[in-house]
């Protein structure tokens, strides 16, 4: 009952209502735009498509409202009033977590309404069933199972968010913490996280990540191509562990001691924040001074050790996972003037210079360039090498040859040709040409008149 009352109070807050409105609009947009391409029109069709997005795009508003449900009573000292009325700390934390679960269900409801509205509006605009298209449902049993999982997951995310909010005590910090916990599952991050697959694995072990894996049996990301089927049960255990950790941290430890001033026995609450000097008996009116120096010193030592380990381990791994243009070897080759486009530039310059230079050192001993390629390069009016930004990889460089006088082949005249150089890196880190493909016609010129050559 207290949980529901706290949840109702939260939903009455303009800030929480604004987040609920954002969730509704986001779900409507998701159901409106891409889902309908697959025939998922109609209210139920929109829900079927957008429902699972609650645990990626919708995870942020879900976690934020849950966190506000936890921090709100704390910041407004409502917890002290409830404890004055006789509520035990354990029950109080339970009520707050329960209110977070209820608020999570409210977000789920807003999401459902938005998704259904988006799907229905799409059906009105483009036609089709106002309820669901023929491909929307994958069977009543599977739909119900997924919906049930979503309901439980929404409540769990809300409850976990509430516990986090309770621990951080302030609304602003609660919003920040909830955003940090949930932002990793936004589809926009998928490409960035995909470069370091270990981050996807780590994300699955985060509190909200564990909820998502347990709900969908997938420890991947929301974006296409990042699905990683996983057993739900182990991650259910991870989720339970996170819940236990948060509950233990949230429930204050009670230690009775004597007040030095009044001599009245009071109960000190280790969960009380700095500067909180409640006069309510049992709420931490008298506290032993926190060993601030020890705590800060330990925190600093842990931070320094962690950062040293980070510096020793992570940069090498991230550097190895970088795209080729950001690789150390590529930078070194560029600096030495032996990157693949620089080699091709010098090769072209050697063949087009007068007198013709010797490109032998630019071609690998094992490589060979077709005589047709060698002959075509000096004859071209202009030569243009593709920019580095448009290269698919370091080992292929495309060159375009433009001819002022079109070359006639049969009944067609061509004014430009493409040559694709294949390069390989030598042991001395120099890129050398190992082959060339082409020239192939690229641009046709106007057909020549009779007698043209």
């Amino acid at each position: 009952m207290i949980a529901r009352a706290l949840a109702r109070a939260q939903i009455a807050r303009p800030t929480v209502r604004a987040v609920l409105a954002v969730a509704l609009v986001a779900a409507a947009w998701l159901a409106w735009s891409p889902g309908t391409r697959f025939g998922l029109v109609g209210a139920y069709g929109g829900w079927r498509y957008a429902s699972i997005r609650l645990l990626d795009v919708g995870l942020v508003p879900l976690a934020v409202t849950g966190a506000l449900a936890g921090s709100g009573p704390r910041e407004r000292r409502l917890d002290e009033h409830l404890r004055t009325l006789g509520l035990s700390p354990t029950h109080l934390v339970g009520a707050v977590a329960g209110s977070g679960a209820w608020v999570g269900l409210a977000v789920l409801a807003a999401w459902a309404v938005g998704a259904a509205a988006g799907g229905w509006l799409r059906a009105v605009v483009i036609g089709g069933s106002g309820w669901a298209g023929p491909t929307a449902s994958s069977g009543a049993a599977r739909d119900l199972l997924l919906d049930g999982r979503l309901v439980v997951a929404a409540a769990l995310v809300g409850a976990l968010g509430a516990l986090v909010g309770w621990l951080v005590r302030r609304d602003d910090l609660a919003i920040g913490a909830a955003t940090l916990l949930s932002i990793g599952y936004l589809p926009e991050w998928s490409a960035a996280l995909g470069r370091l697959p270990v981050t996807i694995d780590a994300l699955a072990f985060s509190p909200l990540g564990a909820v998502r894996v347990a709900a969908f049996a997938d420890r991947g990301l929301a974006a296409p191509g990042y699905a990683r089927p996983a057993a739900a049960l182990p991650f259910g255990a991870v989720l339970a562990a996170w819940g236990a950790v948060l509950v233990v941290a949230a429930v204050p430890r009670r230690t009775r001691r004597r007040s030095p001033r009044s001599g009245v026995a009071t109960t000190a609450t280790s969960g009380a924040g700095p500067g909180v000097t409640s006069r309510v008996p049992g709420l931490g009116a008298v506290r032993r001074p926190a060993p601030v120096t020890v705590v800060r010193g330990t925190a600093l030592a842990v931070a320094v050790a962690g950062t040293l380990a980070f510096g020793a381990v992570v940069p090498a791994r991230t550097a190895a996972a970088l795209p080729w243009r950001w690789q150390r070897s590529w930078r070194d080759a560029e600096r030495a003037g032996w990157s693949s486009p620089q080699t091709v530039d010098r090769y072209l310059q050697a063949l087009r210079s007068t007198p013709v230079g010797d490109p032998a050192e630019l071609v690998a001993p094992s490589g060979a360039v077709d005589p047709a390629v060698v002959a075509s390069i000096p004859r071209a009016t202009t030569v243009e090498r593709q920019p580095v930004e448009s290269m698919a990889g370091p080992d292929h460089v495309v060159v375009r040859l433009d001819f002022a006088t079109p070359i006639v082949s049969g009944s067609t005249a061509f004014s430009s040709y493409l040559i694709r150089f294949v390069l390989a890196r030598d042991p001395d880190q120099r890129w050398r040409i190992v082959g060339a493909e082409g020239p192939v016609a690229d641009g046709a010129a106007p057909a020549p008149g009779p007698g043209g050559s």
Partner: protein
Amino acid sequence: MLPSSPPIAPDAARVAPDPAGASRSGRPAPVGPWPTAPPPGVVGRALLPGVAHSRRWWAGVVAAWVVGALAGVAPAAFAGYPPPGLAASALLGALGVAGLAPLVVVPLVAVIVCDDDHEQVAAAWHAVGVGPARRLALRTGAAALISLGLLPVGALAGLVAAIGLATTGADPWSPGWSGGPGPAALGLGAGLLVLAWVIGGLVAAAAVTPSRAVLVLVSSWLVTGAVASLVHFSAGLVVAFRLMPWAPLWPFDPGSSDSAQFAASIPPGTRIVVGLLWLGVLSVVAGCRRRSTPYPIPGERRRRRP
């Protein structure tokens, strides 16, 4: 204790204190121990101890530490360059905090500036002759002063991360400035820091409560990032993206980033115009908000006066 105090009338808030004891409008001037408003330095020094013990300061310290550690090894980890010298890494760490000031410093400044309204002690400033605009400016200056403390944190983190990188022995290390940022980068960082202070102060003036300020900032970041990622799939959204609140500071340019999803080219002129536009919008919203309710009380709605 001020929570139960009625809101002060808007016109009363604009009454300037008069040394003679009466304002120009004939009403009694605010009485206080200070004959004039406290100078900015006093405000900053007074604010420092309170904020330094608060959780948001420590949250800012953690964020600055993480950013500084990443920035300190960024050339080797994310750009394919040799590891910078230790001193350069420290400078890179501080520069990383300044460069990410829109993400790290803006929320810190905003929530600190919101304190007076949120704790409902804004009227106390009025009692010492400080109006809403000056109070917000003083508070912003003090918060800016406090946020400068994050730079050494980032520098220390960058230094420690660089020492960790040097211990691997993969590259020869140097204690000097090799691989450090140039003057242009330092100037850009300083500019971003100042801009972050301005944005933080304006967001606070418009949002009133810390939670609302953080929510506004988080929403603006997410919306800007989401629209930027959609531009890759729908080129028609280019104009919409350029009008996003953080588009003027968008760092991912096609020339310097290979992210097809997030790299977007925005001409410098567009950045300046859109940035000024958003600063103007924030200023107008903040001005209107403060003109209508100089001392808003969070959680209470204004009642229409008969």
